[in-house]
């Protein structure tokens, strides 16, 4: 067995991301663009490719494409065009897909993504509009086709081969998803297939400048799967090259399309490159070219919302959130909206963020629901953090209050605090002094230890006081008084 030196190699990855747009109707027909309905109910004659039907472009799609182009700082083509891509498959109602081949609507651009605390810029090659296929369903003795998805608008975003690890790939994909969510162009629901990833992967020695053969992994439908799939493929390629150091690299890895087998946790060959189809692209004669005017772009630019990387900058530079906390918030758009609403009445961003992404998230994680869904108002979370910050309650009490908020969603936390005598903080110095005196007399050994220089004993004594007061005394006050008393 060869000792494989993985760190001599550099993975080179390009991602193709298919994103379903959340338009009301499909790309070329008036059928509703909706997931999860009874098979073949969201269809018109256009969706099933009836002879005599013609495509009519949904203008809403152009708007969303331009929004994406602006978000990526891409060049938006004043002239773009649709092409026919021919292949036979039952889920393709016309046996050709309408896509954009050599005149895509979006070229170039950048996706800024946070990779383990460092912001990296990834180059986008292009993005184009195309229509989705239907779905094949296999039954015991036959297969059926559901055309509800046929004609759903897709934007395919193609990166440059500028991604060098699975972590980077996930960061890129996460950032792209956030952009699509923030411009409200897609639901980005991976379980429903509104976000799908294909990765082109090769590896080369770090000393090499040219690319080796790549393979493609199709349809990874979660970030976790994508990370596993890419990692396993990188390892596979490096292992094969390392085990065959004398062979021509071209014979070791040959182009092909793979899928990731979730059980085996490895990539499995679907078809070799030689079998690749000739798609016979040519301009779609049923659709005129698409002209995008500068004024149309300006109009959309005016209404462009704050984008994820802009928000990241604001959170880290103005609200002083940690990059990790900022990313966590931003990559969960619902949570982030929630944070923004709470932040409107609670200026303590850092603490607020912590309560949202750590405390509350931890409490409701198992329920699989969001704060919004449970019915806890962002204003109440804001109140809770405000009460901590102004000393109305201690952090310890706040945790109990949070538990109660989850039990009675919608109830104002100020009322929860007011109604429960246990949640009234101990604020008068004499009561706290009495408690401390009691603890000191019951723990004389610790007092001796402390005076002998064992600092741990101090923490122990504080703990005893907090226990005795059931966490209601302010730790700061206890600290102050105890220090004084021990002097």
């Amino acid at each position: 067995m060869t000792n494989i030196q993985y760190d001599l190699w550099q993975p080179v990855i390009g991602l193709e991301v298919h994103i379903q747009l959340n338009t009301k109707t499909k790309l070329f027909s008036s059928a509703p663009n909706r997931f999860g309905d009874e098979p073949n109910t969201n269809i018109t004659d256009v969706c099933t490719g009836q002879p005599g039907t013609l495509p009519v472009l949904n203008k809403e799609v152009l708007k969303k494409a331009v929004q994406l182009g602006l978000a990526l700082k891409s060049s938006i083509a004043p002239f773009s065009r649709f092409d026919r891509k021919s292949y036979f498959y039952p889920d393709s109602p016309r046996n050709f897909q309408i896509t954009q081949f050599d005149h895509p609507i979006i070229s170039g651009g950048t996706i800024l993504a946070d990779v383990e605390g460092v912001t990296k810029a990834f180059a986008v090659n292009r993005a184009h509009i195309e229509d989705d296929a239907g779905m094949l369903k296999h039954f015991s003795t036959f297969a059926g086709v559901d055309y509800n998805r046929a004609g759903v608008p897709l934007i395919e975003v193609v990166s440059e081969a500028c991604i060098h690890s699975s972590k980077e790939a996930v960061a890129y994909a996460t950032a792209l998803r956030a952009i699509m969510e923030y411009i409200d162009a897609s639901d980005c629901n991976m379980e429903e297939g509104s976000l799908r990833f294909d990765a082109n992967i090769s590896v080369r020695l770090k000393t090499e400048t040219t690319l080796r053969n790549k393979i493609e992994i199709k349809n990874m439908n979660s970030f976790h799967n994508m990370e596993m799939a890419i990692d396993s493929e990188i390892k596979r390629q490096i292992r094969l090259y390392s085990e065959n150091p004398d062979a021509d690299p071209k014979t070791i890895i040959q182009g092909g399309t793979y899928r990731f087998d979730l059980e085996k946790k490895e990539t499995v060959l679907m078809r070799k490159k030689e079998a690749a189809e000739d798609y016979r692209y040519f301009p779609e004669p049923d659709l005129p070219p698409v002209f995008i005017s500068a004024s149309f772009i300006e109009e959309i630019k005016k209404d462009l919302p704050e984008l994820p990387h802009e928000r990241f900058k604001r959170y880290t530079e103005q609200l002083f959130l940690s990059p990790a906390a900022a990313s966590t918030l931003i990559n969960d758009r619902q949570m982030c909206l929630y944070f923004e609403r709470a932040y409107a009445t609670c200026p303590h961003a850092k603490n607020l963020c912590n309560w949202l992404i750590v405390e509350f998230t931890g409490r409701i994680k198992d329920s699989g629901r969001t704060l919004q869904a449970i019915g806890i108002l962002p204003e109440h979370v804001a109140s809770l953090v405000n009460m901590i910050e102004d000393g109305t309650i201690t952090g310890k009490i706040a945790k109990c209050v949070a538990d109660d908020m989850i039990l009675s969603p919608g109830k104002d936390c100020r009322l929860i605090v007011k109604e429960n005598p246990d949640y009234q903080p101990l604020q008068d110095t004499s009561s706290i002094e009495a408690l401390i005196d009691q603890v000191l007399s019951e723990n004389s050994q610790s007092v001796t230890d402390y005076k002998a220089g064992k600092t741990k004993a101090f923490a122990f004594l504080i703990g005893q006081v907090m226990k005795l007061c059931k966490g209601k005394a302010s730790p700061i006050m206890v600290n102050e008084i105890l220090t004084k008393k021990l002097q």
Partner: protein
Amino acid sequence: MHKHSATEITTLFTKGEISAEEIAKNTLARIEHFDKDVGAFLAVHSERMLKKAANLDQKRKSGEKLGALAGVPVAIKDNIHINGTLTTCASKFLSNYKAVFDATVCSLLEEEGALLVGKTNLDEFAMGSSTENSAYQKTRNPWDLSCTPGGSSGGSAAAVSARFCPLSLGSDTGGSIRQPASFTGIVGFKPSYGRVSRYGLVAFASSLDQIGPFSTTVTDAALMMQVIGRGCDKDSTSIHAKAPDYVGSLSSSMKGLKIGIPWHFLEQLNEEVKQNFLASVEICKKLGAEIIDVDLDILSHSIAVYYVLATAEASTNLARFDGVRYGVRSPKATNLEQVYDLSRHDGFGPEVKNRILLGTYVLSSGYKDAYYKKAQQVRTLIIEKFKTAFTGCNLVMMPTSPFPAFTLGEIQDPLQMYLQDIFTIAANLIGAPAISIPSGFSNKNMPLGVQLIGPYMHDKEVLSAAFAFEKACGFGSKIPQAFDKEISV
């Protein structure tokens, strides 16, 4: 009644001098009597037509507004949908296919009170120039039953020529309205690309296809255009400009018109056709037109360009006929590959297969640049050449077809058949309006036609000049003798 034009029929009906029921019954009687010899119709919608006629009579009795084509029987080429009825495209593959919606043209016709008679024969999927490629039947030329009516809209042409009905719809991708019109002695008009909605026309070559009328007079063609020449939201290539008043702008003079003739390109013309064409030119001169010479030698490339582009588009347009969703699925198929292979093998005729193969080939990687792209470039050149020509003239005039109607079975070589389109293809390649008008007869008493081509969007001008020609020429409205008799209902 068979002598009446559409304009006359709708006037008679509107005035109450004849009922829609009488018109419908007369039409059906003529078809019943004659069509076994002609074979124009693949389906006659008798019941549907009589019902619509009864409605129409009711409407007139109750004083409701009647449309521009009220009471006029119109036959429809069988590649255009009438909801709920078969659209076979004269292909075995679609022998069981019932249209699930109305073509925009059919809705417009019925809104204006037209009586849709039924579906007419064609070359399978409109691919051919003699209607012999129909999977169902031969259609014969009413002027000589041993001859072809031309194609691909041969059924629609024969139906009007034999006076089964005064109007019909055809589709013209490379001459499929104009050539059969000239073969059968009637008027055939291919409008500017986008004038008439293609929604509901089963596509052959999307960038070239255009629906248009067959009629016995230019006025009737103009009347039909008034009804069907409208913008359509379901066809992205549709022209949304306001439709001109075609009928109102017909003029019997050609004064001030400059007509360009590509004399050099026409040098090789068949003698009979040449003499007729020269006589037609003289008529135009007498009408006040100035004749000028235009250089359109590039037309010699038009057939090559056409058969690359049209087949490329057709190969993808016909890909949907796979036996999965509709049409005839081969009963021999036991897996998906066989559903595709056998259904298409059994369902398509040889000419359709030829063209799918050719179209697939010219788009294949490695050949696309040499064929498809080159053809697109030449198409652009042809457009430029015509633009230049039209800077010096208002219309271009050519014969419609290089020969009069030929005998059924006479042309076996597909390439020879493709040559039929030599004068007509250009109008499709440049999207221009073009009309064929009767211009006389051959020695064997077969009709000849002359073609006028106008610049894109100048449909009105083309119809107007054709109207003047028709009046002066006097060969219009001739009825083949065998069919020039009343059939009693």
